[in-house]
């Protein structure tokens, strides 16, 4: 589980390493895109063909759908629910829960089999999971003094 009430602070180096992991995974399994989403629905890193995607909304919905399905699993007595597959006519999504309670989602076309996605994901999952765990453990310092200069900006916007 990731630490409650603490911020996830991502260094440029950590993001680049994660992006490389995801990029390799996307290439290996022929995915359109791979996203990592935190347990609150915030996008951590996305890679692949995401230009035409609303990744912010997608991240919120991925966390919502995964969380609600996990709750269903709990209601039927299943405590080890970690994978979810949403099959579409032309595009599908395969989601897996990380040890930090974040979700990794692979979006892929119907020219790719779900078996290939599962196989490639299992090969790289441990490394990705360990890297994200390190990100939570390594960067818990608060961000720079930020709020006071934000006040006039908020006044302008709202």
């Amino acid at each position, binding site marked *: 589980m990731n630490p409650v009430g603490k*911020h996830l602070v991502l*260094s440029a180096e950590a993001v680049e390493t994660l992006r490389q992991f995801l990029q390799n995974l996307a290439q290996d399994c022929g995915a359109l895109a791979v996203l990592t989403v935190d347990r*609150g629905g915030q996008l951590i890193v996305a890679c692949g063909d995401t230009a035409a995607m609303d990744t912010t909304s997608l991240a919120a*919905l991925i966390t919502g759908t995964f969380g609600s399905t996990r709750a269903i699993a709990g209601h039927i007595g299943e405590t080890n629910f970690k994978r979810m597959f949403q099959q579409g006519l032309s595009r599908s999504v395969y989601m897996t829960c990380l040890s930090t309670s974040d979700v990794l989602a692979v979006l892929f076309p119907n020219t790719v089999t779900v078996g290939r996605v599962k196989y490639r994901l299992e090969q790289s999952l441990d490394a990705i999971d360990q890297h994200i765990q390190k990100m939570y453990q390594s960067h818990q310092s608060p961000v720079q003094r930020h709020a006071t200069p934000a006040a006039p900006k908020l006044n302008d916007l*709202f």
Partner: protein
Amino acid sequence: MALINYATREINCKIVYYGTGLGGKTTNLEYIFRQLAPGIRGEMISLATETERTLFFDFLPLDLGSVQGFKTKFSLYTVPGQVEYNASRKLILNGVDGIVFVGDSQRDKMQENIESLRNMEENLAEYGLTLDQVPYVLQYNKRDLPNINSFEELEAALNDRGVPSFEAVAVEGSGVFATLKAVSKAVLNRLS
């Protein structure tokens, strides 16, 4: 739990509107959506029933632009207020950075407000959080209706922590942005 990305120089925060069923949480987001320019807000997503009651959540992303060199984004969520949807409320609170509790000012809704506030504290406790740890503000909605509690009565019943509170008529927009501004400042203050 804010997400601070030094690679993209972005800060992402999650704000949840909580409160009783039909209290005006979705109305707050709908007003914000209508008033803000598309460059500041994204598309609003509502997972609602056929009768427009919130089933799972409403979601509205806001992009506040650059603040101190960081692109600052807020994700606004509502929870379903109906008592039976507690599992959904609990899920939405996961990773929350700030809360707006929308109270219904009508006299016959006071007990529901109190129970909803208690329910929110119970759900936060599931994540090891208390209201002392999460920035939150109160909004007393529906101030235009007859048979409402006075501001002082609402404060006495719902605001024992003395957090910022705002009177609102969300359907007309009154008090909506004052509430959003207050919770936004509180969330950014907590990041400092």
